[in-house]
C-alpha cells in the first residue's frame, strides 16, 4: 500500500511538472492536442492523488503502525471518527489533504468553467498544477506521509485529546479549503496577465470561487474560535496568536477584493489594485502555511519546527516575485476606464473600505512579524500582544463597521443631497436610538457603545434596503408580502445575500463588543464552600462546589467537579467541568498519554455564558481549584457565523440571479453590481 501511495505521489508530481511546463510555455496555442493534454493532465493529477489518499486512509483504518504517520496520530482505542480525521491531523497528512483538495478544485475549474474562458484555462491549469507539484514535492522530499518505521509498533501513540473534538476535526479542513481555493482566483488572475486578456472576463470567471473561498475561510476561522473557546479553557476565543493572525490575513485581503471587484465590474476602475490584491491574498495564504509549519515565530499552535517551513518560504518568494513582475510588465494595459467623480459616492466608500481592510491586514502582519523585524533591525526581540492588536484594530474595525452601513446607502458616481437625506434618515435614527437606550441603561464603555450603536446603524441600513425592495415589488408586481420578499432576494441574490452577510458581521461585532464586560474570578473551594460573581447585567451568581467524582471511560480517566449555580439566590442547576487523563495500554498497564486535558463547563444563552474551568483537586482531596467566568454575548459570534454562512450561500446560489436588464441596474443603489455589458450573458 505504501509503495502504491509513493508511486501515486511521484505520478502526480511528474504530471504536475508537465502541465506547468506546457501550460506556461504557451505552446498549446493552436495545438488542440497539447491543450487537451494539459486538461487531461490536471484530471490525471487528481486521480493520482485520490489513489494516494485512499492508501493513507486504508493504512489509518487498518491500523498499519509500520507507517510513522499512522503510529503518530492514531491508536487502537481511538474512536473511528478520529481515525478517519487523523488524515489531516498532522503535518504530513495535511499536506496530502491540501494537494488532493487543490487538485479537485483545479479539475473543477477546468470542467466547470465556461468555454468562453478557453484562452485562459491552459494557463490556469499551469498555475494550479505548479502549486500542486510544489505541495507534492514537499511531501516527497521533506515530509512523506508514507514514511515507514524501522519496525512495527504494537499500538500507536494516539491523537492528542485536545484534537479529539468535533470542531477540531472540521476546523482545519475548512480553513484549508479556504486557503486552497484562493489558488483558483490567483490562477485566473495570472492567466489573464499571461494571455493579456485583461478585461473583466477573469473576474466573472472567478466570482463564485472567491465567494466560496471567502465562506470557507470565514467558517474555518469561526470554528477555530469556537474550538479554542470550548476546548482550551482560557475563557476566550481569540488571542492574536501568530497562527490565528495567519488565518485572518488572507481573509482581510479577500474581503477587500470581494468589494473592490464590484468597482471594476461597474466602472472599469481599480484593475491593477484588484490584481495586486489577489496575488497578495495568495501570498498571504502561503505565508500562513509558512508561519504555521516553520516555527520561526513563537506560537502556542505551531507544528514541530521543521525544514518544511523553508520550502514554503522559498515558494512564497518565487510566487510573489512572479506575480508582481507579471503585473508590472502589463501595467500600461491596465489603465482605468473611469475616474473617481465625487467623494460622496459608492466608489469612494468602497475605496476607503479597501484601504481600511488592507490597513488592518498590514497592522496584523506588522505585529505578527515584529519580533523578527525588531531582532533584524535593533538586535533585540520585541513582541507585541493582544493589547497592541486591540489598540490598532478596534478603531479601524469600528470605522469599517460604519462603512458597512454607509456604503449601501450612497449612490454610484455622485450622490445628491436629497439622495443622502432620503437614504440616511432612518439608519442614522436607528443608530442614535441604540446609543441613547444603552446610555440610559447605564452602559459607559466607550468602544462598546460605539460598536453597538454602529451595529444599530448597519441593521437600520439593511432593514431599509429590504423594506424598500419589498415595497417596490409589491407595488409593481402586486406580490404578497412573503412572495415579494422571496422574489426580491431570489432575483438579486448577490445584492441581498451580501446584505445578509453584513447582518452576520454586525452580529459578530456585537459578540466581540460584549467581551468588554467579561467578569472573572479564581477560587479554591472545599465541598460546600462558594464564591459570588456579579454579572454585567447586575445579577449575582453564586457558585457552590459540590464535590469531585472519578471514573474511567473508554480511553481516559476522568475527574469531574460539580458546581451548583444560583442566580440572585434562585437555584439554576448544576454544571460539571472535567479533568481528563488519556492513556494507552501497554502490556496490560495504563500508561498516560499526553498531558491532562480540561473539559470546560459552559452554559450559554443570548445574554451571557457561564464558563467554569476545573483546574484540578488540591493534593488528592475533594478541595478544588476553579476559574469562574461570565462572558457576555459570546453566543452571538457563533450565531453570526450561521447568518454569514447563509448569506454567503444565497450570494453564490447557482444561476443568474439578476434578471433585470443591465441599464436599469446602473442607477440603483445597493451592492448588486452584477455584470454590466453583455459578456456574462452571451
Amino acid at each position, binding site marked *: 500500500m505504501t509503495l502504491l501511495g509513493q508511486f501515486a505521489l511521484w505520478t502526480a508530481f511528474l504530471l504536475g511538472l508537465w502541465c506547468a511546463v506546457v501550460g506556461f510555455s504557451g505552446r498549446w496555442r493552436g495545438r488542440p492536442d497539447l491543450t487537451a493534454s494539459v486538461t487531461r493532465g490536471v484530471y490525471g493529477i487528481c486521480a493520482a492523488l485520490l489513489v494516494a489518499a485512499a492508501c493513507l486512509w486504508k493504512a489509518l483504518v487498518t491500523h498499519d503502525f509500520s507507517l*510513522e504517520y499512522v*503510529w*503518530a496520530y492514531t491508536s487502537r482505542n481511538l474512536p473511528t471518527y478520529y481515525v478517519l480525521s487523523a488524515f489531516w*491531523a*498532522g*503535518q504530513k497528512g495535511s499536506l496530502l489533504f491540501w494537494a488532493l483538495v487543490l487538485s479537485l478544485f483545479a479539475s473543477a475549474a477546468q470542467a466547470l468553467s465556461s468555454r468562453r474562458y478557453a484562452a485562459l484555462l491552459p494557463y490556469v491549469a499551469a498555475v494550479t498544477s505548479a502549486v500542486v507539484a510544489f505541495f507534492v514535492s514537499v511531501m516527497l522530499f521533506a515530509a512523506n506521509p508514507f514514511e515507514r*518505521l524501522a*519496525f512495527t*509498533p504494537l499500538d500507536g*501513540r494516539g491523537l*492528542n485529546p*485536545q484534537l479529539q473534538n468535533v470542531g477540531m476535526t472540521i476546523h482545519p479542513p475548512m480553513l484549508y479549503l479556504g486557503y486552497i481555493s484562493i489558488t483558483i482566483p490567483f490562477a485566473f488572475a495570472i492567466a489573464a496577465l499571461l494571455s493579456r486578456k485583461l478585461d473583466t472576463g477573469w473576474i466573472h470567471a472567478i466570482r463564485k470561487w472567491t465567494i466560496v473561498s471567502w465562506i470557507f475561510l470565514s467558517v474555518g476561522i469561526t470554528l477555530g474560535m469556537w474550538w479554542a473557546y470550548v476546548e482550551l*479553557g482560557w475563557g476566550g476565543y481569540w488571542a492574536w496568536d501568530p497562527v490565528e493572525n495567519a488565518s485572518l490575513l488572507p481573509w482581510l485581503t479577500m474581503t477587500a477584493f470581494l468589494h473592490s471587484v464590484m468597482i471594476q465590474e461597474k466602472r472599469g476602475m481599480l484593475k491593477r489594485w484588484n490584481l495586486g490584491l489577489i496575488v497578495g491574498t495568495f501570498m498571504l495564504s502561503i505565508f500562513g502555511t509558512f508561519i504555521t509549519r516553520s516555527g520561526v515565530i*513563537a*506560537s*502556542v499552535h*505551531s*507544528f*514541530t519546527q521543521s525544514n518544511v517551513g523553508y520550502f514554503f518560504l522559498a515558494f512564497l518568494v518565487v510566487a510573489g516575485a512572479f506575480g508582481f513582475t507579471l503585473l508590472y510588465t502589463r501595467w500600461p494595459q491596465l489603465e482605468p476606464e473611469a*475616474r*473617481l*467623480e465625487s*467623494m460622496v*459616492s459608492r466608489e*469612494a466608500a468602497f*475605496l*476607503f473600505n479597501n*484601504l*481600511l481592510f488592507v*490597513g488592518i491586514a*498590514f*497592522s496584523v502582519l*506588522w*505585529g505578527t512579524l*515584529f*519580533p523578527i523585524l*525588531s531582532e533584524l533591525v535593533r538586535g*533585540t*526581540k*520585541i*513582541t*507585541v*500582544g493582544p*493589547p*497592541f492588536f486591540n*489598540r*490598532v484594530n478596534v*478603531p*479601524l474595525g469600528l470605522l469599517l463597521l460604519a462603512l458597512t452601513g454607509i456604503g449601501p446607502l450612497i449612490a454610484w458616481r455622485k450622490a445628491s443631497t436629497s439622495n443622502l437625506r432620503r437614504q440616511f434618515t432612518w439608519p442614522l435614527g436607528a443608530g442614535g436610538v441604540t446609543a441613547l437606550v444603552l446610555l440610559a441603561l447605564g452602559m459607559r464603555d466607550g468602544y462598546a457603545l460605539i460598536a453597538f450603536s454602529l451595529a444599530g446603524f448597519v441593521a437600520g441600513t439593511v432593514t431599509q434596503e429590504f423594506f424598500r425592495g419589498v415595497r417596490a415589488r409589491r407595488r409593481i408586481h402586486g406580490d404578497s408580502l412573503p412572495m415579494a420578499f422571496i422574489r426580491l432576494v431570489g432575483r438579486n441574490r448577490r445584492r441581498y445575500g451580501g446584505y445578509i452577510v453584513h447582518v452576520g458581521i454586525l452580529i459578530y461585532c456585537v459578540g466581540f463588543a460584549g467581551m468588554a464586560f467579561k467578569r472573572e474570578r*479564581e477560587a*479554591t473551594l472545599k465541598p460546600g464552600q462558594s464564591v459570588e460573581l456579579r454579572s454585567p447585567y447586575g445579577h449575582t451568581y453564586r457558585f457552590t462546589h459540590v464535590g469531585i467524582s472519578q471514573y474511567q471511560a473508554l480511553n481516559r480517566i476522568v475527574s469531574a467537579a460539580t458546581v451548583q449555580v444560583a442566580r440572585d439566590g434562585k437555584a439554576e442547576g448544576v454544571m460539571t467541568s472535567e479533568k481528563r487523563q488519556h492513556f494507552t495500554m501497554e502490556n496490560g498497564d495504563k500508561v498516560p498519554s*499526553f*498531558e*491532562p486535558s480540561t473539559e470546560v463547563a459552559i452554559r450559554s444563552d443570548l445574554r451571557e455564558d457561564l464558563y467554569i474551568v476545573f*483546574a484540578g483537586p*488540591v*493534593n488528592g482531596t475533594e*478541595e478544588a*481549584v476553579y*476559574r469562574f467566568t461570565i462572558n457576555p454575548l459570546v453566543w452571538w459570534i457563533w450565531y453570526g457565523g450561521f447568518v454569514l454562512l447563509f448569506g454567503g450561500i444565497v450570494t453564490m446560489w447557482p444561476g443568474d440571479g439578476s434578471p433585470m436588464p443591465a441599464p436599469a441596474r446602473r442607477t440603483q443603489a445597493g451592492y448588486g453590481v452584477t455584470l454590466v455589458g453583455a459578456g456574462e450573458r452571451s
Partner: protein
Amino acid sequence: MKAGTKFLIGAAVIVASVGFLITEGVKETGVYFLTPTELASKTAADPTFYDVGLKMGAKVVPGSIRRDPATREIDFKVSDGRQIYPVRYRGLVPDTFTDANDIEVVVEGRLGHDGVFHATDVLAKCGSRYEAAKPTRA
C-alpha cells in the same frame, strides 16, 4: 478640488492614522522577548532593567514545579541551558504546562530585585502537541 485629489487626501489621512496607531501601539505595548541568558546580560549591563515588563522564553527545568493548589501559587525554574531563573506565578496554568519533558514556556512579567521572575502570564508550548518523536524499540 478634484475628487481624485480629495480622495488622495482622505487616503493619506487613513494611511497616516494606521501608521500612527501602529507606532504608538508598539511603543506603548511592546515588550522585550528574551532568553534567560539575554536577560542576565541585560541586568548585568544595566541595573535599572529590574522590574521592567518583559517576556522570557525558556524551558521548564524538569522536576522544578512546586504547586500550592490552595493559594494557586506556582513556583518553578526556567532555563535555556546556561542561565536559570526561578519563576513565581499565581493563577491557573494551561494543561500543557508540566515539568515532564523539556516543555517550552513563555512567561510574561518582570524580574524582581529578589532575583525571582514574577510572572503575570504563563504560556506553555508542548513539543508533542501535534508531532511526536519517533518511537524507540523498548
